[in-house]
């Protein structure tokens, strides 16, 4: 079953110039957003990205940027009320994670 979330919202960016072609991003991505093409990584489907940040964190060349976070409405709601950054403590019993 293929899932699709909102389109054109994702903050993922890959710099082809900086990419050294190690393939780590393609290895770690849980939604197979990347593939390797001629010694360079490429983004196949940006809308599948869930901004977990695994690719950017594991890129030794700093070629990937993404505003990483957890897509959890309960955490966002809490951050709106407390005017703080979302805290994914998952103790809100709202079922995140």
């Amino acid at each position, binding site marked *: *079953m*293929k*899932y*699709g*979330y*909102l*389109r054109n*919202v*994702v*903050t993922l960016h890959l710099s082809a110039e900086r990419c050294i072609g190690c393939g*780590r991003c393609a*290895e*770690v*991505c*849980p*939604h*197979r957003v990347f593939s390797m093409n001629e010694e360079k990584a490429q983004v196949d489907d940006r809308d*599948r*990205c*869930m*901004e*977990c*940040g*695994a690719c950017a*964190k*594991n890129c*030794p060349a700093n070629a990937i940027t993404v*505003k*990483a*976070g*957890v*897509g*959890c*409405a*309960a*955490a*966002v*709601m809490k951050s709106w009320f407390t005017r703080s950054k*979302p805290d*994914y*403590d*998952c*103790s809100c*019993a*709202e*079922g*995140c*994670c």
Partner: protein
Amino acid sequence: MKMSDEMSCCCSASSCCSAKLITPYSNNDVWVTGEVRTPKGNVPVVSTGLRLQDILGAWKVRWGIGRMNYKISPGLYAVGKPGPTSPVLVSANYKLTFDVLRKELSGLDCWILILDTKGINVWCAAGKGTFGTDELVARISKTGLSEIVSHRKLVLPQLGASGISAHEVTRQTGFSVVYGPVRAKDIKGFLASGLKATEEMRTVRFSMWDRLVLTPVELVAAARFSLMVFGVMFLTNLFAARPFGLADFIAYAGAVVTGTTIAPLLLPLVPGRAFAWKGWLLGLLWTLAVVAYNGWFAAGSSLLAIGYLLVLPSLSAYLAMNFTGSSTYTSLSGVIKEMRTAVPLIALSSIAGTVLVLISSLRA
């Protein structure tokens, strides 16, 4: 590296060190079946079979009972009879995670390095940063792993990657990181194929069963909120010309179940992309059905019908929106975008609906 090794050993005499236990455990931890000796001390050996106690424990946390305190001691554990060349698997100290992992390791000889994630599963802990580079580096040094194994390779769960910087771990400890499969059940295949994961092993799925096991916690959370709603209904009934009855209870409960359970289960089948939209659509269908069944569209109770049509679908929408946190594919940017539209609409619609329902009850 050398220095931290020396510091982690309390004494130089080998007799002292061999008696030391690297990872503490209690007698209640029935899944520990023995100990294995290493140059740095004894390591608890864990069973690969789950007992009734483990299964009941899993069932309890799925319903939200003691979910935030279901953990084991971080440290090094052994499966089978591991030696210096055996693979090292890294995981989190959520007991449910640990059980899912060890259950898949029967017949293998390997080490399990458990990080202190405060009892949170790998993926969520990686998102929070507790399943992170610093904790991994510290745990390697605390357990003296580099003297227990002769190789320099760690197998991490792929979903831990959002908390770990593999090249940073290598730089600080000398251990290289290989990301294993997403699911524990693929570990045997992964190890057997020389640490090669297939595309299938690397892809997160979100099957109906995956979604189903997550819904009880949502239902329990909604039940707490519902107690307040029932309190308001009860107080209203003291003055009401048309008291709330079983039909109202069913209408409300149905909207809660629609948002917490039906919407998550039917997730990919409901048209649209935003979770709140999917919940609202299903909630509307439910409300239309229940209002029609009770004959509330009749002229005398049209205020009640409109009220319910405003409040119940928005309740389902809100509850379904909260499932974004449990889902495996929603991005933070997407959730924020969805909420900017959905939350004001939900708030307006539910306030207006509640007022109409209360008015229709009080004056009938």
